[in-house]
């Protein structure tokens, strides 16, 4: 059972355990290693084998589920505080998703843990061949601030299901959620096998100097490189869920109102702070003319005449990002929105037109409620535009013609692809979620998370006897044996190998 109250995470009396049982390094400890004890404890626990049995893993997952259910209000409040998220948005984009992942893992744990049989060949027909899923050991999950519950707990579900010990580093930027996770979550999970580490870039850097058996990072490509470089020291495999500029192509042959509904919803959800949000639109000038009034109508319908007073529109996470986004409002020309309020960290749902490719809004991932429209003359130019840039995390194409959609799919690359909608594919746990190129490496969700945090070990058990069959492989290789081997294995029958 999970130990209630915990407390063993805090080792040094010099430390100021400001938040529950989670560990925050004290300035006086900058010389010593603040994490060594915690990590050693977790490693010992892993070696003891306590995380291996299915019962233990299921208990941890159930406890995680209870954490979500029993602290729903706390989490709603924290998300409202951090991102001005409404309860509805918090439910559909964070809590329900986490709960679904937990349920999926609990339902399928036995099946996922089972050895996978391998098919044998001519040489190994009499053997037993299987692939064993093993936990890596001590894994580190570094989470971002934009969906601070979802993007922290969903990887955790897979890591626990796979039988690892986990160090969790939630984002310090989403302070409200960090506080709830730090104070409350450790009470639910077994303290021997789970630790929360808090802090900013400096503490994370120190943490990364240690050896982990797997690192799962969600964040920007810039920090992704730092994480991967740090992982190199210990040859630690990584999954990097990064980002980029997700293009959204709109064909002329479309109902602009439907497109506007779908694009606007996904763009402005969470005030645009979503790694898979459509980042910019690509369409013809004619389509742009039809889209603009449709987008305005959608925005008004969604958020009212005064979006700032809508409970359904989020806020920018902090001043730094607010200032960054406000500066982007100066790019191109504001066609819709453009208002901002510093005190509230509010930016209106905005559409920019007449944007140059060289302007900042087209050079960095926007991560805000601003939608630039770039004009292209047709599908080929759009494809060429997209392929000149880094591979995005998601790619969207709107068209009534399946030929157009398929051509876009075939001639581009991206983490994922959705035709005629936004990131609704995230609701399907049978689809893996991950990037390619600069948008990331590795993938997760559902069983893919379990597989990510497992080492697939090839096991072959040969019969202890029947040695005569092996004689053919032993030297000396007489001419006759050589001929035989050539004949048996030389021609088309090489598939037996």
């Amino acid at each position, binding site marked *: 059972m999970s130990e209630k109250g915990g407390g063993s995470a805090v080792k040094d009396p010099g430390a100021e355990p400001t938040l529950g049982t989670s560990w925050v390094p004290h300035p006086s400890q900058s010389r010593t290693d603040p994490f060594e004890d915690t990590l050693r404890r977790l490693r010992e626990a892993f*070696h003891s084998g306590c995380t*291996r049995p299915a019962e233990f893993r299921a208990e941890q997952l159930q406890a995680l589920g209870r954490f979500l259910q029993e602290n729903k209000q706390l989490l709603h409040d924290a998300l409202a505080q951090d991102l001005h998220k*409404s309860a*509805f*948005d918090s439910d559909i984009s964070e809590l329900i998703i986490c709960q679904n992942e937990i349920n999926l893992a609990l339902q399928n744990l036995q099946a996922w843990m089972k050895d996978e049989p*391998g*098919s044998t060949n001519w*040489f*190994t027909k009499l*053997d037993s061949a299987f*692939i*064993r899923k093993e936990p*890596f050991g001590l894994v580190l999950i570094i989470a971002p601030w934009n969906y601070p519950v979802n993007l922290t707990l969903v990887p955790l579900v897979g890591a626990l299901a796979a039988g690892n010990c986990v160090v969790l580093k939630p984002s310090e930027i989403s302070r409200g959620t960090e506080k709830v996770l730090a104070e409350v979550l450790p009470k639910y999970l077994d303290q021997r096998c789970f630790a929360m580490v808090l802090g900013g870039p400096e503490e994370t850097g120190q943490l990364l100097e240690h050896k982990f058996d797997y690192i799962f990072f969600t964040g920007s490509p810039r920090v*992704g*490189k730092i994480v*991967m*470089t740090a992982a*190199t020291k*210990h*040859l630690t495999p990584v999954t990097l869920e990064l980002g980029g500029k997700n293009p959204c192509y709109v064909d002329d042959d479309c*109902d602009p109102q439907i497109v506007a509904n*779908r694009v606007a*919803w996904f763009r402005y959800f969470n005030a645009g702070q979503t790694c898979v949000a459509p980042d910019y639109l690509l369409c013809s000038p004619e389509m742009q003319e039809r889209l603009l009034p449709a987008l305005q109508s959608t925005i008004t319908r969604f*958020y009212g005449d005064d979006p700032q007073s809508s409970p359904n*529109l989020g806020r920018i996470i902090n001043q730094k990002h607010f200032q960054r986004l406000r500066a982007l409002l100066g790019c191109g020309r504001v066609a819709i929105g453009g208002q901002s309020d510093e005190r509230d960290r509010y930016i209106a749902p905005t559409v920019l037109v007449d944007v140059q490719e060289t302007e900042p809004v087209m050079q960095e991932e926007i991560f805000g409620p601003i939608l630039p429209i770039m004009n292209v003359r047709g599908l080929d130019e759009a494809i060429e535009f997209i*392929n000149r840039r880094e591979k995005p995390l998601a790619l969207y194409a709107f068209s009534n013609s399946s030929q157009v*959609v398929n051509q876009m799919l075939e*001639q581009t*690359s991206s983490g*994922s*692809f*959705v035709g*005629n*909608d936004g990131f609704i*594919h995230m609701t*399907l746990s*049978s*689809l*893996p979620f991950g990037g*390619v*190129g600069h948008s990331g490496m590795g993938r997760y969700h559902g069983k893919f998370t379990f597989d990510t945090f497992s080492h*697939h*070990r*090839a*096991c*072959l058990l*040969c*019969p*202890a006897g029947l*040695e005569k069959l*092996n004689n053919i*492989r*032993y*030297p*000396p290789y007489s001419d006759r044996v050589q001929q035989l081997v050539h004949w048996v*294995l030389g021609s*088309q029958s*090489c*598939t037996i*190998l």
Partner: protein
Amino acid sequence: MEREVQRVRQAFLSGRSRPLRFRLQQLEALRRMVQEREKDILAAIRSDLCKSEFNAYSQEVITVLGEIDFMLENLPEWVAAKPVKKNLLTMLDEAYLQPQPLGVVLIIGAWNYPFVLTIQPLIGAIAAGNAVIIKPSELSENTATILAKLLPQYLDQDLYIVINGGVEETTELLKQRFDHILYTGNTAVGKIVMEAAAKHLTPVTLELGGKSPCYIDKDCDLDIVCRRITWGKYMNCGQTCIAPDYILCEASLQNQIVQKIKETVKEFYGENVKESPDYERIINLRHFKRILSLLEGQKIAFGGETDEATRYIAPTVLTDVDPKTKVMQEEIFGPVLPIVPVKNVDEAINFINEREKPLALYVFSHNNKLIKRMIDETSSGGVTGNDVIMHFMLNSFPFGGVGSSGMGAYHGKHSFDTFSHQRPCLLKSLKREGANKLRYPPNSQSKVDWGKFFLLKRFNKQKLGLLFLTFLGIVAAVLVKKYQAVLRRKALLIFLVVHRLRWSTKQR
């Protein structure tokens, strides 16, 4: 260097490596190359490692041919989109995984099996539709040369190129940007490769090494065990990443093991091993000297003869080896087999777990429970029980390390997957926008009561009835599918209940 890489990238961007037919053609051409130029390839391997043609054929060429055939047979299935299970929200959409090539792949080969360790990854990269730059190991010079000569004669010259060179050239090459790097070699260079890859966020597969332990239980047939170990250990003069590196066993077994290995060596390689055509040589002087230094201060039970001129080291066994000595500190990669006595299997497991995770683990026992325990309580890239090496041979198996023995895996479909991006795709239609109203703001209490809001606002009563029926139909279908086992069992009961209901309705 940059220009070469750019040229290959342009070739990839032309799109011609993508169609299935092209990939199959290239693989067939590769097959022809291996068959038509077999003699040249075997001669090159022979010059590098003093390997007999038969050994080169059976250890390297066969695996390559087998892999190509496996790809040719399965590729059409693998390149196809794979539909995935959908949920209620996406029931009417198309959802699938579409494998796509990554782009330009760099394969850095190793010298110990210079042909297969370069070509087998190449096969996977071609099969996945990528362009490939191959950098064979400069230590196996002749194979590197022959690959540079032959590949352009059979494969597309712009999509698949060979770049040869030493440390300097490889360092320059690693500065370039690739879409995947597969490196086979040692841990130290593995780190260099990963660090270079991190600069471009390039995913890597690292096939490294380590000390692969071999536990011999007292409950086993030592004759058979020692034959198998001898085969696997001294093949390629011990220069195999998955060779049993050292033996763990109870002290009482040592003498017997030594004796039986000695007999087997004689059987395999004759009285004078140096003259056996089936026994290879150490790749170069540096490694020869390195392995020699591992013998210092050790109890040589048999073997130990060396000849610097020919880089010959006899099959050697060391006994009562102290774990703190040099031979137990690094991967031996030579024909020296230390035996480290342990009290029992518990000690053996602790011994293994105190060290870095190895690429392979071997356990010999008649006791299946013991083998199971050894697997359950340790970790390694792969395992073979009651034999050595063999798990490498199955192309349904992923081949790769864990921890410092590597990351990622390849062989067969795992190669295809390694070199592909499995792209999740969801295709919806622009119709049925009404269904989306549920998710759009403003969110109100009425949205929670979705049935009333959705149905009453959008449809009239007739359509409502139809929609209800459809929804019930979907729910029923899902439920039936989920519980069909239960339903089958309770079919009779359900029938009776329904019959009863109908009868009672009729009565009214």
